[in-house]
């Protein structure tokens, strides 16, 4: 008879936790530098504001315009976020948890709109229905463009959720609909909140679509003040409000208790739950999904095709400029993606492997960048460039840095997820087998986190290709990227001349989007956990 002293699982968790490793100085120093670099825009926004002076900022802010901008921004953010939450969650549930016909195809189709820039969706809808402007036009276009931000994390969470919980709920006498509300949605709670956070922040940052739809928000007004009115103080004052809104949203999400975390007692079981049969609801669900894909993907792609075909001769001279715009866009975006992935690596290693209060603070501070819209980052870099780094102003490095700063959080999230799945114990084993520390890291940890680094690259690349706001401000002199050239043509209502640029932009973004989609589905499912 064996007398087992305590539960072995408890010992393991206990023991591992007790061995807090000393934080390597190089890693800590690199992370601090990265965090500091990311916060440069905030610092310079404040420096700029300080020079404008308190009195003039107050004068610029306390006027009717600010109130109407605030009202426009808030009512748009509230309604669009809600719609994205409903659409993203329903689509995720249908595709991941029910026996919907053609699930694999739908899973690809519903995330593709993520590769279509919002201003291209607006372009598609406006060229089909020119009257679709103002508030409801903005709600429609932004919902169609942003719901994938909710769909992706929620679908991943549905896939990895423990089907046992739903089965227990059913066995306790709950009906399927009740199970969905009381168990399934709760399991996906943190993913859903995270998605909604991304949607609201994207709404604060959007410029191009709103400008086309003639809907005024803080971002469009800041842009106009700066680019058209050359009124830097007003742009700076309004930026302060915009950043404050972003910080409020970010803080609000962070302050919600994180009860969505799963607590598993036993070993991870790689088991797929049984899919719910939709029965008579199958046809309506298929119709709803078709409608969604038609509106989000069909309209913009259809209109681009229409203009490509009917534009005919007028687009021909654009071939050389199209090629150069493509090369510039791809080059800047790839450089930014590589830079962001590289910067994310030390912060992710520090945050996952050396958990402490200050490493958490450091990680949070880098995520603060999420609350900075492109226009604010761009203006801060303009201020930095014109005042201190004139040789760099309107050069490629500055644009690349702007992209890397703007999309750093995307890179961090992707890299962090895989670092968390590459236990430090494996590196220790490699060392006990005779590998020097760096070799151990290269041979064990690097292959394990490589998919995360690739995903980070894809995400940042995709986001940079479709970025418009910061690009318009920071694009190097004499250079046109796909987004700026597209914008120049649509501003002159030369829709057919703009079409090829939109087509290439989507083509450049769609491959990484598909790769990231695949990565999400593999990495978040229980079968991908390292210890079966």
């Amino acid at each position, binding site marked *: *008879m*064996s*007398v*087992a*002293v*305590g*539960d*072995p699982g*408890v*010992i*393991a968790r*206990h*023991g591992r936790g*007790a*061995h*807090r490793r000393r934080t390597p100085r190089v890693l800590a120093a690199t992370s601090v530098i990265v965090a500091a670099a990311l916060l440069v825009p905030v610092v310079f926004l404040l420096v700029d504001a300080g020079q404008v002076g308190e009195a003039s900022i107050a004068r610029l802010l306390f006027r009717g315009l600010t109130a109407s901008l605030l009202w426009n921004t808030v009512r748009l953010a509230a309604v669009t976020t809600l719609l994205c939450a409903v659409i993203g969650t329903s689509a995720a549930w249908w595709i991941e948890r029910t026996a919907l016909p053609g699930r694999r195809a739908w899973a690809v189709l519903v995330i593709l709109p993520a590769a279509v820039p919002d201003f291209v969706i607006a372009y598609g809808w406006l060229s089909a229905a020119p009257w679709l402007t103002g508030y409801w036009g903005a709600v429609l276009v932004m919902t169609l463009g942003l719901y994938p931000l909710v769909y992706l994390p929620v679908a991943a969470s549905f896939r990895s959720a423990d089907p046992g919980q739903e089965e227990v709920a059913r066995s306790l006498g709950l009906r399927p609909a009740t199970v969905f509300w009381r168990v399934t949605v709760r399991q996906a709670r943190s993913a859903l909140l995270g998605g909604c956070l991304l949607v609201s922040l994207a709404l604060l940052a959007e410029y191009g679509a709103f400008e086309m739809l003639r809907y005024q928000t803080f971002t469009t007004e800041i842009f106009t003040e700066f680019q058209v009115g050359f009124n830097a103080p007003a742009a700076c004052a309004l930026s302060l409000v915009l950043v404050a809104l972003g910080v409020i949203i970010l803080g609000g999400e962070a302050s919600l208790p994180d009860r969505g975390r799963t607590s598993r007692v036993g*070993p991870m079981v790689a088991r797929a739950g049984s899919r719910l049969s939709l029965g008579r609801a199958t046809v309506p669900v298929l119709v709803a999904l078709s409608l969604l894909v038609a509106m989000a993907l069909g309209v913009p792609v259809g209109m681009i095709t229409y203009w490509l075909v009917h534009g005919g001769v007028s687009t021909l001279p654009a071939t050389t400029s199209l090629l150069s715009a493509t090369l510039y866009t791809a080059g800047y975006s790839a450089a930014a993606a590589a830079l962001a992935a590289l910067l994310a690596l030390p912060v992710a290693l520090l945050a996952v492997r050396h958990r402490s209060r200050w490493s958490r603070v450091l990680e949070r501070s880098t995520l603060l960048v999420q609350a900075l819209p492109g226009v604010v980052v761009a203006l801060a870099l303009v201020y930095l460039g014109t005042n201190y780094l004139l040789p760099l102003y309107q050069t490629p490095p500055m644009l690349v840095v702007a992209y890397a700063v703007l999309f750093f959080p995307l890179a961090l999230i992707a890299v962090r997820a895989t670092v968390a799945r590459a*236990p430090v*114990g*494996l590196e*220790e*084993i*490699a*060392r*006990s*087998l*005779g*590998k*020097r*520390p760096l070799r*151990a890291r290269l*041979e*064990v940890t690097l*292959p*394990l986190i490589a998919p995360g680094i690739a995903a980070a690259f894809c995400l940042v690349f995709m986001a940079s290709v479709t970025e418009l706001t910061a690009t318009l401000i920071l694009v190097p002199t004499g250079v046109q990227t796909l987004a700026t050239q597209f914008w120049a043509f649509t501003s002159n209502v030369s829709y057919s001349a703009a079409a090829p640029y939109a087509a290439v932009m989507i083509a450049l973004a769609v491959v990484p989007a598909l790769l990231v989609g695949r990565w999400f589905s593999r990495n978040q499912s229980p*079968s991908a956990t*390292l*210890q*079966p």
Partner: protein
Amino acid sequence: MSGLCTEDLRKAFGSNQVLNGLSLDVPPGSLTAVLGSSGSGKMTLLRLIAGFERADGGRIVLGDTPVDGPGCFVAPERRRIGYVPQDGALFPHLTVAANIGFGLPRRSRGGDRVTELCAIVGLTGLESRYPHELSGGQQQRVALARALAVKPNVVLMDEPFSSLDPAMRASVRADVRAILRSAEVTSVLVTHDQDEALSLADHVAVLRDGRIAQFGRPQELYEHPVDARMAGFLGEANLLPGVADGRTAQTLLGAVRLRAGLAVETAGGSVVVLIRPEQILASTNGGPGIPATVVDCEYHGHDTVLTVRPDALGQLPLRARTDGLDPVAPGTAVKLTVRGEMLAWIS
């Protein structure tokens, strides 16, 4: 083949003094089990020996080479210590063969050594599988083969069998012991399972309060625990108060015979007497003995453990192991007698 020795080893995490002057001498070529309860510092000891952590004080000597101590620290990759963690910790991106060959020089990774090790641990034919395609026992064997591949001085195993289901545990244990024997390697196994420690190891070291409370062969430990607490830790124990006089002690179960050479033999007086469950006989068909009533009966198949309450003695339940073939119903009246010689300590 080299032994392993730690002297006065100390390690604290914050204010938690985990190892407090631990000295342990592992004979070359032996399998030594370090037995301790949860949080006793077993894993810390292994991590210090492997070099994943540095000791706050004391020395670790591997063979003749100090590897940790004042002014001396040998990096883990230069200690040649094989480490087999609890979950196996196989490299998930590598096949079985690549896992086993991980520590070998590049040119011999595809060679005979890997094939040979696969055969030793009984995994021939699974070389191209990935860790997630293996059962828990197979993963454990790969982890052992990977550790043995580099011909280590010492193999360290951290609760290697605890994640296996009981049916598989016995066979994997036996296999591992045979593999380690044939590899003639010094090995240290930490476990919280006293049964595992006693049945598997050549030597057992009991870790208590951050130091080794007792070290010896399994039989020595079981038969001569240093104190009553140790007796209770190493198997089931009935600890009865008694009064000793020479080699006899008066207990609640009557006069019992004490083992020769105990400290209490000369001192006498008030003592604690250890009576193992197998030393109490419970007879259902009358005869002499202390009358008692069966409270509970745990039927294990190969033996039966009774919980009995002596009628005259109120609330004190005793455990008695019988080879009885038939379960005994609670409430049955039995007669208790003791057999053999007992251990006792001055209380």
